[in-house]
């Protein structure tokens, strides 16, 4: 079952992540053009080589998204997917692209997640009340409208906080371990010129002194919203041979969806990334111990902690000790989120997960410069959407 590892990431692009965006505002389709041009140029390919795209939603259109993008790019495709997996969308794009390539229906697939601000509308419209409910739906008939929103259970912070609180009741909660996770990642981020926290490491003291947002989660354990965006080009083995960089083969993937609202999870402390990761490792024929670097989706510290456990890097309940005992900077014994993660980069909406994919490719290609992990051949990547609702994993290997 699964991939043969014939498809590979051959190029990538990434906007600088900034809290206060300093560049020109562009519509989403325009950002698609920019990212496509940058990523194809990085790979050494032309627009005419492209015959597939994977996208998320765009600001300019609620439907017919892929057709709108390919028309704007000016390039017909055989394969087009709009992925609706929140923060897991980037991982979801990459495996779908690899699957399409191995099926022989596409050779070059651009996967992009633009998330820069769009130009201000000269005719501002009234505030859409749905905006308040963010990723929960207040539409008539929606379970969230009836059983969550009236109690105020909406937005992401509280869902993750309630998972963390339950984790603490079952396994104990060590604030120091969570702070160390942030410190190690911010150390990596401080070395990444594309990160919002470039040149800005932090300390455990600062993390533990940061404002409590939703117990037990503090401000510095939560991603900061930023402008950004990224893209990768996935190509067939034949195309990869004529590209510029070491091919980053996609050898394993998994994806698992369980719930929208964690209240209804069978066990709040067991996350979907477990089944997703087991499938990915089995497909690639690797074990967690074979991994040279892990790029783990980190909307919150609790997400990383539970992914370390459920993906099999350590036993259930041992994650906090594992964090305390491991060096998680780029030069440590367990290099984790070597770009800073989203805690170090900032989170550019659904593009956040693309930073993990891009960094994995960067490391395997040997282009991470001062953050380069030595002999980096096997990288684990995870993506998380919703509130541990939908998670996906990739195994990437140097070709």
């Amino acid at each position, binding site marked *: 079952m699964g991939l043969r590892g014939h498809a590979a990431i051959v190029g990538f692009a990434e906007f600088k992540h900034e809290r206060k965006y300093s560049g020109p505002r562009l519509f989403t389709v325009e950002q698609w053009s920019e990212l496509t041009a940058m990523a194809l140029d990085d790979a050494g390919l032309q627009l005419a080589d492209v015959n597939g795209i994977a996208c998320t939603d765009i600001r300019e259109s609620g439907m017919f998204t892929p057709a709108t993008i390919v028309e704007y790019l000016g390039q017909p495709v055989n394969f087009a997917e709009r992925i609706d997996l929140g923060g897991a969308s980037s991982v979801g794009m990459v495996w779908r692209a690899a699957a399409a390539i191995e099926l022989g229906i596409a050779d070059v697939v651009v996967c992009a997640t633009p998330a820069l601000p769009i130009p201000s509308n000269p005719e501002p419209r009234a505030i859409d009340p749905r905006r308040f409910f963010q990723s929960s739906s207040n539409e008539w008939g929606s379970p969230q*409208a009836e059983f*969550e*929103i009236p*109690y105020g*259970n909406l*937005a992401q*912070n*509280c869902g993750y906080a309630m998972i963390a609180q*339950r984790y603490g009741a079952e396994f104990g909660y060590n604030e120091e371990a969570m702070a160390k996770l942030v410190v190690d990642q911010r150390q990596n981020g401080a070395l990444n010129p594309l990160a919002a926290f470039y040149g800005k490491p932090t300390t455990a003291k600062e993390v533990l002194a940061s404002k409590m947002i939703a117990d037990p989660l503090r401000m510095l354990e939560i991603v900061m919203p930023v402008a950004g965006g990224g893209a990768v080009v996935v190509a067939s083995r034949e195309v990869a041979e004529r590209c510029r960089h070491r091919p980053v083969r996609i050898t394993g993937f998994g994806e698992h969806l369980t719930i929208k609202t964690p209240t*209804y999870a069978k066990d709040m402390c067991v996350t979907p990334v477990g089944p997703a990761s087991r499938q990915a490792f089995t497909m690639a024929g690797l074990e967690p111990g074979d991994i040279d670097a892990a790029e783990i989706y980190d909307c919150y510290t609790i997400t990383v902690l539970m992914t370390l456990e459920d993906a099999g890097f350590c036993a259930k309940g041992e994650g906090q000790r594992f964090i305390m005992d491991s060096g998680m900077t780029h030069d440590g014994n367990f290099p984790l989120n070597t770009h800073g993660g989203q805690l170090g980069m900032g989170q550019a909406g659904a593009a956040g997960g693309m930073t993990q994919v891009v960094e994995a490719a960067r490391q395997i290609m040997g282009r991470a410069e001062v953050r380069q992990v030595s002999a980096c051949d096997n990288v684990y990547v995870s993506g998380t959407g919703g509130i541990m609702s939908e998670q996906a994993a990739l195994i990437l290997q140097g070709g």
Partner: protein
Amino acid sequence: MDLVKPIPRPSPTTRPFWDGLNERKVQIQRCDGCDSWVFYPRTRCPSCLSDLLIWREVSGQGVLYTYTLARQPTAPHFADETPQQLAVVELDEGVRMTSTLVNVEPSDIVIGMRLQPYFDQVTDAVTLLRYQPG
């Protein structure tokens, strides 16, 4: 900004739950196909897909499965409740529901504590099921 708090709009499927709360009763569905309790209300059982779902009155009592104190409003509508005492309650029947805790100090909240219903009539037509120690 003057914002009206969002309230549930019962559907044909869920109305018995909300009607029950208006009468200070907790009613949830039980599946005759596989003998499991179901929440939130559905047309078919999420364990076996049977449509033999029967409304039953239960005590409404349970334990605190988890909680958080939202120190920033989760939406502007809830600014007056800060910190919001959001909770997940596990009923004695095993199903879980989202709620908020009332009549308890934040420092007294402990996961696993016994809870009982607090019927909060928020409009003429709608009662929310909040929870208090008990």
